[in-house]
């Protein structure tokens, strides 16, 4: 009888011990970061690609620093490009009320920086209407307008190049395509607008009553 009790005790202890040992797979690591480091070391690339999702998109390839990626083509999709089609004369002449010209982007209001920092000519060049220009007067193509933004928004530019800022438009798989600054932000009023949320959950509200 004693022996039996002893055996039972041992069995019980074993079973309790058993519970405490969770099964762990061979592929587990101490932390997911370690796992990423270890398994990513010999990354050979995947067969998955997002080529087919960007096929219809009009994209151009840019290289900034050590990163090469795709951004949407801009010039072709600007309604009034080339600008010189209208801006053949100096601005002062075009503004003359006597001259009858179709009105265009007359309603643009700049809500971007303050008047001390920004006016039209901070980005647009009076002399070279078909291009933007940098603070030092260097011409910048409309296709690479991000370079204009990057002059002040350096940290955003860094994040955008890396991937922490900006919206991916291809899919996660390479090649990487990303919206340029102006595809999300209106350069003249870059702040996002307030609006109502897309959904409201009535059910959840009732449940918490």
């Amino acid at each position: 009888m004693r022996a039996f009790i002893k055996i039972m005790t041992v069995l019980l202890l074993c079973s309790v011990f058993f519970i405490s040992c969770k099964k762990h797979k061979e592929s587990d690591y101490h932390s997911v970061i370690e796992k990423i480091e270890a398994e990513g070391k010999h990354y050979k690339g995947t067969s998955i690609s997002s080529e087919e999702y960007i096929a219809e998109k009009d994209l151009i390839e840019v290289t900034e620093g050590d990163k090469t990626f795709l951004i949407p083509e801009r010039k072709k999709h600007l309604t009034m490009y080339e600008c010189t089609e209208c801006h053949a004369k100096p601005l002062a002449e075009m503004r003359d009320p006597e001259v009858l010209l179709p009105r265009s982007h007359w309603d643009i209001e700049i809500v971007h920086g303050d008047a001390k920092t920004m006016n039209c000519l901070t980005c647009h060049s009076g002399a070279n209407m078909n291009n933007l220009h940098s603070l030092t007067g260097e011409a910048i193509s409309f296709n690479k307008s991000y370079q204009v933004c990057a002059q002040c928004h350096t940290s955003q530019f860094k994040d955008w190049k890396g991937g922490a800022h900006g919206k991916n438009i291809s899919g996660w798989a390479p090649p990487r395509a990303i919206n340029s600054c102006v595809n999300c932000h209106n350069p003249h009023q870059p702040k996002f607008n307030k609006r109502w949320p897309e959904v409201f959950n009535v059910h959840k509200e009732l449940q918490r009553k």
Partner: protein
Amino acid sequence: MNTEKKWFSLNLGRKKESASTCGCGKSGGCGSHEAAPTPEKDGFDQVFDVPMSRRSAFKKLTASLMIGAGAVHSSCSVTAGDETKEKAQIDWEEQFKGNYKLMNDEEKKATVDRLVRSYELRKGDKINMSSKNAEPDVLFGYAFNISKCQGYMNCVSACVEENNQDRNSEMQYIRIHELKDGQGLKFDEADDNYYHEVPAEGHFYLGTQCFHCDNPPCIEVCPVQATWREDDGLVVVDYDWCVGCRYCMAACPYDGRRFNWSTPEVPEEEVNKNQHYLGNRLRKKGVMEKCTFCVQRSRAGKNPACVDACPTGARVFGNLLDPNSTIRWVIENKKVFRLKEDLGTEPKFWYYMD
């Protein structure tokens, strides 16, 4: 390489993979797994490969029942056409099929074909269902920029539409919490069901969903292995294998799981017909479901619907194993944090700020 055991680990019938494991019960790691390119299935899968064949024996046993039932059925209804019989046949095979996790590719394809056919017979409409497996060298991860999220909730509605969630109970995988500035992550005082113009003054927004933990408590507790972590890191549910005990729901510290309390309903014209077995195929009542990072999209190279719907670019998705991926750049270059890291669940969902 560390050969010293740090603590006891129970090796239940698992094959010793190689001598190069560091032996720390939590296993592997320590950069010692370079030599093992093909991950072994764990011991339990191998053990339960046997019951799979036993199950076929079980099937045979019940087959006589089926024949009986079928005979009665067809003798009762004179009009019982081929389609009715086929429907019954499909239903029967679906009822007694195995766990998707343990199926081989052929079996996976067979069940997907049955489900597609079943939908066609019922609704007269074709759906496209995939059974694509995890790709090697892929581990999905997600990052969320709490400075960028404006609380528009486009992600929430896109998710519902993409994943065929129940419209009646307004099931949503994603929650956007409106948190007060200066109070940190005080979730209990946050509002996750706001309806006013956003972004509201003095608030910031943080979205939660299933974090696809690398050490998920939910899959440990499932009594039937109806939920598991795929090799590409997705935590998925086999809706047909789930018994609906909701233990995983109690075990999830992140409110990542949803239960179908009644039969989910999606209006016919709103059904997303691009489906995956483990993802957005139509569910039934009494089973768990959850965010799968849109497995039907992500395994095809697309972003999950929430990422594509986000107008602010606050959501970043990618392959953690690809050193050139944006998700890796975010983790390595931004100040990232995860929720409830102290629980040891290792979520693959990072938050960061500008």
